[in-house]
């Protein structure tokens, strides 16, 4: 498939920001806030999430066996199970059921066309069931209000849970007024809903077959579970005598008791409700009497007679899922319960919605996994770069799926599938990576930012002047896709490592530390000179060294390899893997000597604490994780152990400071220690609530994403505007905020270091 060019992609994103962004942001962010509240009101949330995940792990592991169990159970109840290989297979089966049903019992409605009513189901979207049934001469009506609006508008869902989230009430009213031409034009949500209810009620009564999805299928009782707020799924399932439920094979869980954590979690994670209005557990055909809207005055049939009239088909769809099960990286996707929490918590999704951040069917963070699995990599390639790896979805996902990792892996696979370009030689010399040719030049450049930074620093300030010059910006934009509106980082001639050596290295640091301390703190620190701290934001590195020394801790700042963070962001997993091993090797002796590793840049710490689990042997990963700390977290620990905060720069007790933590730092629960340290040092910190600054390393530099990045950043900037002092932990956050607010945004450690003046 032809990929969009950078400028096409930029245009498309700009268009979505303008047309759909506001509505999606309003809805998704309020769902997200409600989810957070529901999560924090649940005592045993972590236990529930862990349990839910382990049930899914087990179920996917035993899937072939559960399929057979479900088949036996449904057949014992009197229903039929059909396992469909792919979309065409499933669609043909459903069309066949509808035709057979309407031939046997006659067509229920007024005309000669068999008709079907459907309750919202992403799985039927995945197989394009509506189009297939229409082509088979069958009328199909969506009954979920949002889904029906889209059907009327000939539009596609933009969210897994709120399919019409991108439309505002006025747009829906306009659409309905035009299409249905009512006597009094529709205005309020109440009027629109009333109209839809009546219109759809007629269709439900006249339908020959009701189609639903299934949120879960309990294998041993053959029970399908439908979770809805409107009640249309119940109506579709019980009103027509024939019910077809379509679900991916991954929806199977072993027993009824396995359902409990999901019933408890799904509404909380989706909308922040404690439970959905209707959790319907059906083991069809049911005992409910059959209704006959054609012959309404006849007594209804009940009991066994009714049961005999009812027909139930469970279609379990493979469509790539059995292969995903064999794929060590994509398997986790199958644990997904489609709650949409990852979308709601995602800053980029909130700006462009699922029409931008989504593939053929699925949208949001997990869509990469779904699309790669069921539609193929090209569908995922369309939007995969919109995941910045901020990891805020990690805490939102009720089954603890590592969504950013899936995005990284799929990005890597997409990178590898691209053809080598003639321009590869341009960066080959600069990039000592593990990647094949064909990788997007911009990605390759950012994935090797350490090498570039080293060269730029060695030639600073000339390199900075050059980089700012118009012709160079043009070249950078054309070849690497770096947007010329973004200020480039200014490289320092003297790196942090050089500065540290010049002032006497580790020996001098020991002397300074022993002078500073009055309590005996027996720790030694290796300060990790990440690329930005070492070459660009050297001041925050110096501040970190001075702070630690003032609290009595001797520091070393050795020249260490890159962490692999930059490579990971670009989906260069092999490169990151090699870098992780090198970094671990370089630190192994320090770890053996019980030194602590202190990290200034949160994204590098996040690599060590999260992604290294995938890249290093387990024991190495654990050793490094257990011994590495974020700088303010470490300072917090020192103060807790008796170090004296008066050695640092202190506020007057109520000195206001606005603090933007960093997305990955928040996922690691490391916002609180910085806040606590600021308080201990006499400041009155206020934290920001925006999920993310939108910059995320290289993301905001790229021409196609610049505007999206700024849109996200502005939401954060608005919260901060007017604050006296603003500090941010991440380089990207700082860069973004400095650009938007046109002021200095230091790292909190700079505020705390001895000698700083507010």
């Amino acid at each position, binding site marked *: 498939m032809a990929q969009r060019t950078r400028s096409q992609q930029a245009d498309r994103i700009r268009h979505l920001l303008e047309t759909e962004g506001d509505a999606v942001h309003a*809805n998704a962010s309020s769902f997200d806030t409600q989810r957070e509240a529901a999560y924090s009101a649940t005592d045993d949330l972590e236990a529930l999430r862990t349990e839910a995940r382990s049930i899914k792990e087990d179920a996917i592991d035993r899937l072939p066996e559960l399929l057979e169990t479900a088949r036996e159970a449904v057949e014992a109840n009197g229903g039929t199970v059909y396992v469909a290989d792919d979309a065409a297979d499933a669609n043909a089966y459903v069309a066949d059921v509808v035709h057979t049903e309407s031939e046997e019992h006659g067509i229920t409605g007024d005309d000669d066309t068999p008709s079907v009513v459907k309750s919202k189901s992403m799985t039927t979207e995945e197989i394009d069931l509506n189009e297939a049934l229409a082509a088979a001469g069958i009328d199909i009506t969506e*009954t*979920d*209000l*949002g889904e029906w*609006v889209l059907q009327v508008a000939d539009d596609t869902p933009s969210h897994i849970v*709120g399919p*019409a989230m991108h*439309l*505002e*009430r*006025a747009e*829906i009213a306009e659409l309905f007024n035009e299409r249905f031409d009512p006597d009094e034009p529709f205005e*309020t*949500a*109440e009027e*629109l*809903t009333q109209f*839809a*209810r009546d219109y*759809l*009620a007629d269709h439900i009564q006249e339908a020959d077959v009701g189609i639903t999805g299934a949120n879960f299928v309990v294998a041993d*009782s053959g029970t399908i579970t439908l979770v809805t*707020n*409107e*009640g*249309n799924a*119940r*109506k579709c399932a*019980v*009103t027509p005598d024939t019910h077809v439920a379509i679900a991916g094979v991954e929806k199977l869980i072993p027993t*009824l*008791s396995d*359902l*409990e954590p999901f*019933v*408890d979690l799904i509404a909380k994670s989706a909308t922040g409700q*404690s*439970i*959905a*209005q*209707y*959790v*319907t*557990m*059906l*083991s*069809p055909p049911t*005992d*409910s*009497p059959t*209704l*006959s*809207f054609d012959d*309404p*005055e*006849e*007594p*209804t049939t*009940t009991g066994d007679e009714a049961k005999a009239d009812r027909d139930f088909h469970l279609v379990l769809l493979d469509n790539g899922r059995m292969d995903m099960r064999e794929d060590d990286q994509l398997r986790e996707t199958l644990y997904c319960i489609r709650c949409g929490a990852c979308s709601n918590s995602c800053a980029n999704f909130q700006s462009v919605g699922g029409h931008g951040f989504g593939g053929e069917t699925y949208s949001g963070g997990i869509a990469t996994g779904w699309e790669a699995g069921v539609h193929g990599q090209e569908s995922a390639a369309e939007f995969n770069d919109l995941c910045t790896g901020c990891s805020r979805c990690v805490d939102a996902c009720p089954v603890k799926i590592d969504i950013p990792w899936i995005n990284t892996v799929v990005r890597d696979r997409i990178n590898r599938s691209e053809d080598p370009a003639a321009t590869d030689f341009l960066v080959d010399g600069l990039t000592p990576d593990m990647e094949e040719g064909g990788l997007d030049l911009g990605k390759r450049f950012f994935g090797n930012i350490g090498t570039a930074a080293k060269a730029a620093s060695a030639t600073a300030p000339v390199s900075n002047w050059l980089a700012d010059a118009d012709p160079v910006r043009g070249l950078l934009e054309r070849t690497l896709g770096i947007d010329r509106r973004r200020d480039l980082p200014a490289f320092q001639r003297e790196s942090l490592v050089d500065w540290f050596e010049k002032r006497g290295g580790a020996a001098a640091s020991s002397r300074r530390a022993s002078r500073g301390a009055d309590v005996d703190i027996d720790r030694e620190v290796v300060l990790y000179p990440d690329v930005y701290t070492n070459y660009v934001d050297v001041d925050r590195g110096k501040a970190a060294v001075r702070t630690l020394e003032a609290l009595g801790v001797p520091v070393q700042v050795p020249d260490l390899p890159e962490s692999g963070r930059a490579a990971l962001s670009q989906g260069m997993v092999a490169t990151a893997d090699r870098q992780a091993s090198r970094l671990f090797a370089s630190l192994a002796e320090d770890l053996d000597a019980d030194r602590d590793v202190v990290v200034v840049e949160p994204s590098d710490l996040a690599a060590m604490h999260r992604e290294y689990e995938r890249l290093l042997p387990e024991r190495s990963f654990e050793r490094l994780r257990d011994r590495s700390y974020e700088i303010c977290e470490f300072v917090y620990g020192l103060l807790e152990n008796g170090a004296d905060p008066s050695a640092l720069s202190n506020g007057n007790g109520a000195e206001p400071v606005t603090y933007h933590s960093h997305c990955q730092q928040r996922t690691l629960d490391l916002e609180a220690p910085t806040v606590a340290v600021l308080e201990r040092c006499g400041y009155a910190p206020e934290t920001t609530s925006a999920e993310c600054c939108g910059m995320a390393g290289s993301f905001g530099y790229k021409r196609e994403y610049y505007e999206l990045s700024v849109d996200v950043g502005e939401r954060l900037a608005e919260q901060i505007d007017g604050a006296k002092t603003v500090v941010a932990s991440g380089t990207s956050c700082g860069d973004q905020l400095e650009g938007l607010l046109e002021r200095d945004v230091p790292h909190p450690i700079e505020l705390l270091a001895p000698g700083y003046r507010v």
Partner: protein
Amino acid sequence: MTVDTIGRFERALEGLEVGFERVPAADASERIETIVEEPAVGAPLPFEGATLPESVTTTPTTADLERARTGITPVGFAIAEYGTVAIESTADGAEPISLYPDRHVAVVAESDVVPNLSAGFDRLESQFERGRDSVVFATGRSATADMGDLVHGVHGPGAVDVIVLEDR
């Protein structure tokens, strides 16, 4: 059944804007009478001493169901923490009676109000063992925000009342 569980149930229902009444079985009929809007359809109450008002049609045709403004059904059990009632798919039509009319009146024995979801699942599992394996957990009123604002009573009832029989 502790009083606390019922109190919790009442508070949960209040939050959902669902009516709550606690009455002796013998007064059920009278109370239901004051709540229902006619025409009304219902599934017979299986609680000793509790009956449906005379005016309620108990073996409704499809037309009765379509016309009805109120549907009254017993429920198997209720979950106090979330204000949930468990409606069973029975041959006398509890499922459609609770779903089609705009108002649903659910009648539950006080001894069948369990404290939390976990206790609800214990009840559910024993029901499944006895072969009653199609149940709806209904919590509050049918709702949607798809038309740009929260609206109740979309496809299901827009008003719900729960009557707890205190001596059952």
